[in-house]
């Protein structure tokens, strides 16, 4: 069978036969790094094109349709343009922080790739506190934004960065609480355990209404955390030109842009893992025949299908809703999402203890 885990095992076996274990491990790490960078590049190209097409169709436009067949090479052409542009550093900027910020954004995105299970038994690092790791590392993202805003020496950038800080600090809470409700049901922070627990049905179906509420809260909170519309106050074009990346150009801007899309992919992958079963095929209880048919679809297709569905939902939000004001944004979090997710966590805990889920 051609599966990712099979290929990975083959490579591992061959490397260990040919080289000594240390060298084999080093080579494996390099391969993993290259694979992650390759995935980033592909994701950037695909998601930018997808966003432009989705936005165009939702706004009754055509979208890119000139470069390549049906405009499919548009994002590639844009990337080439950004590559040859000058990466300008403004005179009054803090040079070190200014140049460091985009790389921090990328490094955070790369670190977050580690615990994600892309297919059956295909995971970079199945650490036993995977979900905690994700929520901890993802909050470093705000540092890169603050760094970019501060070092630009530009009032728009600083304002955008400060807004982004307030926003991410607030929404981290309800995202964390909705993630916790799944952790409570599963009893484990390990990603592979969470996926295994959904072998007889995804949590969104098994967990009744509380998990659905947690899912909705999670989607809203991660939309805010990735700074996307309707929560894009950090870059709000009409008020702050481009917010924290106003002063960035060329490849440094492209890194921020790429980091945004990779972050969207990551949060959607986490959402798919927690609520929609990760790579787990669609199973219904004891229907052996049906479950068997579903198992024929490769696990990687299940994972990417669910993730891209969630990405589409987040894009759907972006092109439907107007931007919130800062007070509305904080009202939504502190007055609505946080109390709701707290009560919801309590209900989910009661449900887990009493065994009311399937």
């Amino acid at each position, binding site marked *: 069978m051609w599966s990712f885990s099979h290929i990975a095992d083959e490579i591992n076996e061959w490397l260990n036969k040919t080289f000594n274990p240390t060298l084999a491990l080093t080579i494996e790490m390099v391969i993993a790094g290259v694979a992650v960078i390759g995935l980033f590049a592909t994701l950037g190209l695909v998601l930018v094109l997808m966003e432009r097409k989705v936005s165009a169709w*939702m706004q*009754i436009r*055509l979208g890119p349709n000139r470069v390549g067949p049906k405009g499919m090479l548009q994002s590639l052409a844009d990337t080439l343009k950004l590559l040859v542009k000058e990466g300008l550093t403004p005179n009054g900027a803090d040079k070190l922080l200014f140049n460091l910020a985009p790389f921090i954004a990328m490094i955070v995105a790369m670190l977050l790739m580690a615990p994600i299970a892309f297919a059956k038994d295909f995971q970079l690092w199945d650490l036993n506190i995977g979900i905690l790791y994700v929520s901890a590392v993802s909050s470093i993202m705000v540092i890169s934004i603050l760094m970019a805003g501060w070092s630009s020496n530009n009032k728009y950038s600083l304002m955008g960065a400060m807004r982004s800080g307030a926003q991410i600090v607030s929404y981290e809470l309800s995202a964390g609480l909705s993630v916790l409700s799944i952790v409570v049901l599963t009893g484990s922070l390990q990603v592979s355990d969470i996926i295994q627990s959904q072998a007889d049905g995804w949590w969104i179906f098994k967990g009744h209404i509380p998990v659905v509420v947690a899912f909705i809260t999670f989607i809203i909170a991660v939309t805010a955390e990735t700074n996307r519309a309707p929560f894009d106050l950090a870059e709000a074009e009409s008020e702050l030109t481009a917010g924290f990346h106003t002063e960035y150009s060329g490849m440094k801007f492209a890194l921020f842009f790429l980091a945004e899309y990779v972050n969207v992919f990551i949060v959607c992958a986490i959402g798919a893992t927690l609520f929609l079963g990760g790579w787990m095929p669609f199973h219904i209880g004891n229907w052996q025949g049906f479950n068997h048919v579903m198992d024929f679809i490769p696990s990687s297709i299940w994972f990417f299908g669910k993730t891209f569905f969630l990405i589409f939902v987040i894009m*759907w939000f972006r092109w439907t*809703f107007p931007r919130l004001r800062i007070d509305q944004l904080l009202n939504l979090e502190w007055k*609505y999402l946080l109390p709701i997710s707290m009560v919801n966590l309590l209900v989910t805990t009661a449900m887990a203890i009493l065994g009311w889920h399937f």
Partner: protein
Amino acid sequence: MFITKYIKDVWGAVRSLATGMRRTMYYFTHHKEIITQQYPDNRDTLVLPERFKGEVVMPHDENNEHRCTGCTACELACPNGTIKVITKFDISPEGKKKKAIDKLVYHLELCTMCNLCIEACPSDAIKMAQTFEHSVFDRNELTKILNNPGSKIMEGVE
């Protein structure tokens, strides 16, 4: 009570958001609604909306007659001096003097297509045309005289 208002707020928000999302999903799945015109490519088949405003014209009938009485209502209505009505006095067969237009000068380069002159006209003498390819090399060509040479007012238009 506070809690019922709270729940009502949440419910109303969810419902109105769902309404918006249903609308965009409708557009996303119905590509026939797309209004983009691929302009230079479909120049021959281009269909503009009925209310599109390209430039002011004065329609003439087959006898080279227009409906303009020279009342200068359009000139007065114009916010930026685009229209200049130059009047003359015709001598009717009965020997009476009658006001008529000599030239209706229209400065396309000043016009903002605000439609106020068309609304001001009491006799529907001018209207908006659908032409929009106005680029020329000499800006004098943008100063147009709307009435044809030798044209006169239609019978019965006062």
